[in-house]
């Protein structure tokens, strides 16, 4: 599928491969074991330009094609899913600005994200509103030229390390479901806003996940993205665009696990020959490789369709079907392939000295976040059936 990449994209991927080999791969196991966010990596990624990929050139970014981002995320995820997520979340957190903010707001915030000076985060999920974000209860009350935020967001990637977070809250207290929700941009350090890291995760342990607490947090009305009531639509536009990134993350992890297992089974001897000579394992290998390639096809296709259809912040009409398919399929493939990779390594597969057990733990989360894979099925089915509900 890499024939879909042009020369420039291929060269960028090569650079990222070298960067990952030098600055990520040697430390990934340690960051995972210590459950530590690698602050040192932020600078490395910023310097290389990986944190400003999504920002248009007029705001100091690189204006890279979504396929470039997908290829970069995939390459990083081959060695460390958490490192890849750093790039994906930078994209996720600023997409609401790209699709929903005014020119003046874009000029104010985007250059800081483009340079990597600022990290971003996307705060949609609440303790009582995960798959159903329309069930959110966080409030935003207008007072003069300010809004007062009260509520809690949970499981927010980069939540405690981000300098700016987009959050979604109800401006209309009487509203229900998707209506009456508005998007806001909140800067770190705003009084009344605290972020508490959530520790003890199964995987993605080098990625920051935080609970965001807003207690009478006052922000200028100028920090509102779009109009009151447009929040839900901004959130959905964002997720439609970011799902190929998560698919790419899953794809990279699957490829990384496959590559590792492929090398291992040719070295490991049992019954006097390499275990790769057993047809039972060869069949597993063939299935893993084929699924990975199919996932890549779907992921790249989704990225290209999102780009074509999503120009100027438009709501996707058909591309969201493909971005949901890619997210669902690639993350399921990652789960299967990493599990099989552990199997191919036998007992060694479950040991921390080998990378595949970490990849398997990381993969589980891909099936859950950015909309669980059950929710992706709803999105896909609705794309055929319209608003009809099951």
């Amino acid at each position, binding site marked *: 599928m890499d024939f879909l990449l042009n*020369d*420039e994209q*291929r*060269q*960028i991927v*090569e*650079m990222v491969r*070298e*960067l990952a080999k*030098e600055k990520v791969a040697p430390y990934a196991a340690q960051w995972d074991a210590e459950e530590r966010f690698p602050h040192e990596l932020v600078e490395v990624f910023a*310097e*290389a*330009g*990986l944190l400003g*990929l999504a920002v248009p050139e007029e705001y100091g970014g*690189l204006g*890279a094609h979504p396929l470039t981002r997908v290829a970069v995320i995939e390459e990083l995820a081959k060695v460390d899913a958490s490192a890849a997520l750093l790039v994906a979340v930078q994209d996720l957190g600023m997409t609401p600005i790209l699709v929903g903010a005014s020119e003046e707001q874009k000029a104010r915030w985007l250059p800081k994200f483009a340079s990597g000076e600022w990290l971003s985060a996307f705060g949609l999920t609440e303790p009582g509103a995960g798959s159903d974000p329309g069930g959110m209860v966080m409030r935003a009350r207008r007072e003069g030229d300010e809004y007062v935020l009260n509520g809690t967001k949970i499981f927010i990637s980069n939540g405690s390390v981000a300098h700016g977070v987009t959050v979604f809250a109800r401006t209309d207290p009487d509203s229900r479901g998707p209506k009456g929700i508005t998007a806001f941009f909140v800067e770190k350090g705003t009084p009344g806003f605290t972020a508490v890291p959530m520790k003890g995760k199964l995987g993605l342990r080098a990625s920051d996940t935080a609970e965001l607490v807003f207690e009478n947090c006052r922000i200028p009305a100028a920090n509102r993205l779009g109009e009151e009531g447009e929040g839900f639509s901004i959130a959905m536009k964002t997720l439609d665009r970011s799902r190929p990134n998560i698919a790419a993350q899953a794809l990279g992890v699957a490829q990384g696990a496959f590559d590792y297992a492929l*090398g291992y089974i*040719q070295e490991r001897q049992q019954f006097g020959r390499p275990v790769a000579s057993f047809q039972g394992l060869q069949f597993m290998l063939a299935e893993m490789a084929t699924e990975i390639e199919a996932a890549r096809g779907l992921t790249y296709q989704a990225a290209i369709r999102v780009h074509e259809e999503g120009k100027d912040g438009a709501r996707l009409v058909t591309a969201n079907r493909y971005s949901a398919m890619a997210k669902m399929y690639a993350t399921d493939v990652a789960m299967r392939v990493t599990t099989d990779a552990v199997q191919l390594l036998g007992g060694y597969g479950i040991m921390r000295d080998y990378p595949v057990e970490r990849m398997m733990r990381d993969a589980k989360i891909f099936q859950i976040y950015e909309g669980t894979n059950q929710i992706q099925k709803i999105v896909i089915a609705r794309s055929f059936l319209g608003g009809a509900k099951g």
Partner: protein
Amino acid sequence: MHIAVCIKQILDPEISPRAFKINREAKLAEQAGASLVIGPFDLNALEVAIQLKEKHGAKVTVLTFGEEKAQDALRRALAMGADEAVLVAGDGAASREPSVTAKVLAAAIRQLEPVDLVLCGRQSGEWDYGQVPGLLAEELGLPLVPFVPRLDVSGDGFRLERESDAGNVVVEAPKGLVVSITNAQDNNPRLPKVRDIMMANRKPIKKLGAADLGLDEASASASAGRLEVLDLFIPEVDSECEFVEGDDGAEKAANLVKKLLERKVI
């Protein structure tokens, strides 16, 4: 100051031994799944050139004698900070013998605006003849300072450190010389940034053929070589493991010596 850097695109030397395959008939390494990269010492040479440019201001022109796909190597060099790139195109150029490569590169360098410094990696990283820098100096009629980890501008010329068997030697040379660069901590090649890669793809690459260089086709072709590769193979290494028996350390040692003598290791 104008610096010319000669680079060669080679098979990634860091691929796993298992992935390394050769075609014994053609007497060539097979690319298979391996990527093509700039030779490691050539990267050091590029880094040295770019550091000189950053410090003193210079124009850096990068040249390669290679196939069309060697443009990727030139793009990487542009992304690292080179200003101009020249591809001297030739099928199978990568396996030309050093004297032919040197002749072609010299002809290309003569076409550039006058150069103050020509840098090469000390050897390519695959065939590793290490002869192009010397032969190139000869072709250009310039002095050669080999095995240089670092150099700087000094007065009207350069001050260079050169590795020798006895230690490092410091020499000075006027402008107009060829230098072969060896690796050192301070010439570790930089990774280009995404933006540099994008900009590099917008720069033109100048393409020249033998005719543009005033060379007849034959003198740049494989037939110009006088070196014949008779055979190419990957040496097979057999390994065996045997535990030396013995009741105590002394007996084990004695048995070990006996075995080593038997096998004529000592």
